[in-house]
């Protein structure tokens, strides 16, 4: 296979002498492409930081929207976002890590079940976020929620958009992230540690609980943080499952609707009666969301770098 791969590719080599100059230019072209990407990122971030930083004051962070959202702050949106991702993480991480433990420690690699799980994880990661939104509405609200209302006799308690359903929809959306990163983390734990623990008479679960999980914790945290960062920015899955345009009060239970930063940005930039008047608030909201996701990502990247360094040091 390898000879079939490399031999014909080397055929055009006679061009070597003539191609030197163009090769140099083409090499430069790749660098230019990379440079342009960096520049585009810098322009976007710069534009948002430049027009946004003046809006972000303590009052902006702590106040509620006023005068048809053309003044005031974004506290309800921040609160809603935090409540949403906290609920999501609580629902998501135990199951995601459990699935990763199963895949890495228990699953026979070639069994049909293992392959079905891996196939699902890979493809779940590729489902468009708007389809998750449809699913959340069709399954959680219309099927589970309305069903629970019928069974419990509650009057539209479960069967309507709420923090709970939005968080569960996002949890499913982020399940692959958590499984994949947690499995990667388990892979970094040296086999000798498992063997040492079991040689001392620990059961498999004792080994996992007392040896593997503490060792894999940075990686598991990385996955959780990445899912939080992604969850905080996703709008399409929560549009129909719980996010509200504007609410005069904060959500007081998981059954309430909520305001959310990403959705707030969408609402302000597309439905505002007076775009120019809203602009400072809009830019401020975007900056807050960006800083939030940026800080979360940075933490995740640093944790992952440490984990990978550990892995590299072992080989």
């Amino acid at each position: 296979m390898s000879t079939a791969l490399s031999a014909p590719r080397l055929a055009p080599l006679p061009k070597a002498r003539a191609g030197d100059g163009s090769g140099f230019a083409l090499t430069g072209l790749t660098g230019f492409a990379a440079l342009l990407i960096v520049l585009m990122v810098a322009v976007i971030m710069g534009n948002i930081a430049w027009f946004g930083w003046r809006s972000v004051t303590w009052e902006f962070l702590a106040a509620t929207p006023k005068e048809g959202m053309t003044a005031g702050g974004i506290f309800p949106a921040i609160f809603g976002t935090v409540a949403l991702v906290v609920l999501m993480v609580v629902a998501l991480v135990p199951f995601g890590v459990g699935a990763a433990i199963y895949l890495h420690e228990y699953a026979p690699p070639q069994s049909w079940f293992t392959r079905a799980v891996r196939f699902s994880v890979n493809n779940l990661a590729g489902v468009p976020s708007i389809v998750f939104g449809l699913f959340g509405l069709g399954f959680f609200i219309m099927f589970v929620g309305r069903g629970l209302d019928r069974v419990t006799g509650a009057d539209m308690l479960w069967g309507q958009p709420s923090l709970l359903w939005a968080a569960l929809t996002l949890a499913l959306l982020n399940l692959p992230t958590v499984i994949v990163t947690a499995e990667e983390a388990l892979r970094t734990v040296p086999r000798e540690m498992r063997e040492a623990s079991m040689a001392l008479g620990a059961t498999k679960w004792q080994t996992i609980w007392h040896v593997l999980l503490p060792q894999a914790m940075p990686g598991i945290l990385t996955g959780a943080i990445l899912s939080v960062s992604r969850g905080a920015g996703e709008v399409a899955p929560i549009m129909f499952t719980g996010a509200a345009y504007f609410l005069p009060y904060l959500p007081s239970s998981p059954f309430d609707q909520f305001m959310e930063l990403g959705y707030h940005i969408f609402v302000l930039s597309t439905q505002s009666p007076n775009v120019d008047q809203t602009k400072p608030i809009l830019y401020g909201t975007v900056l807050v969301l960006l800083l939030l996701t940026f800080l979360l990502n940075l933490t995740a990247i640093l944790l992952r770098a440490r984990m990978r360094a550990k892995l590299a040091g072992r080989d």
Partner: protein
Amino acid sequence: MSTPLSRIGSIEHAGYGASARRRWQRAAEAVITVALRGCAFLAVAGLLLIVVFVFKEALPILTSAETQKEASLAGFAATPLWQPVGDVPKYGMLPLFVGTLKVVLVAMLFAVPFAVLAAVFASEFAPARVREALKPAIEILAGIPSVVLGFFALMVMASWLQAVTGSVVRLNALNAGIALGLGVIPTVFTVCEDALRAVPKSFREASLALGATPWQTAWHVTLPAAGAGVSAGILLGLARAVGETMIVLMASGNAAIVSGSVFDSVRTMSASIAAELAEVVFGSPHYSTLFFLGAILFAITFVINVLAGLFVERLRQRLAGA
């Protein structure tokens, strides 16, 4: 490997006669194994439930005579008009297909050259320090929520593009496509770069030793060797572009027009769902039609993702054989 080890443990324990405790432990282990298996099954269940429930809500299009009076497969194809709200609703899907195709095409034409070339640069030519600067930039781009890219395209980029191109319509397929391309670049870049770096060093060394220049080595040896991975990256980017919602919803103008020009406003399938679902009556023909659009989106992205998975598998086998 683990079984013999645990057996060693059990022999040691048996000497102490703690058999009741060990029986309890074994039962607990069995319960835990089942619970973990259940966690893993959640991923399968999630994917299955998505299929079942999205398709279930779309099903009246095919089965219910009541729904078919207003929205049917024949109706989707019969008219080039998407006018779901009105006295006589029209659900011609052609404008949505054309709109999606146009935006996705612009996005891919914009993103793929940038992402692939930058990936070649990062894995083949860049000095370590430059690469260390490039990767965080890509990760920042990947971390920007799509609603923020949509915001930027709507508020800022659309005006710049209009000034440059002189287009009549401010929010058009070009604007949405470029913004979408920005969202796709990190996906394509990351998968391509991983594939390129997975090519064994010996390939490059052999090529260079035969007198090839670094560029020739990259173009004729490394890229072809990583070809399957590069294709996978492009496919994953394509799937993301087809399904992405917030960017196109905010940046495309959302007019359902059939035209070939990128300077016209467009409405995509994903944006239609996002824009209309909040206002439809549960179970109405319009509701079913939007779920039908969702089912199509799911099917398209699913096929592309499975294809990308096959390419990744092929790359692994190729490089494992090398």
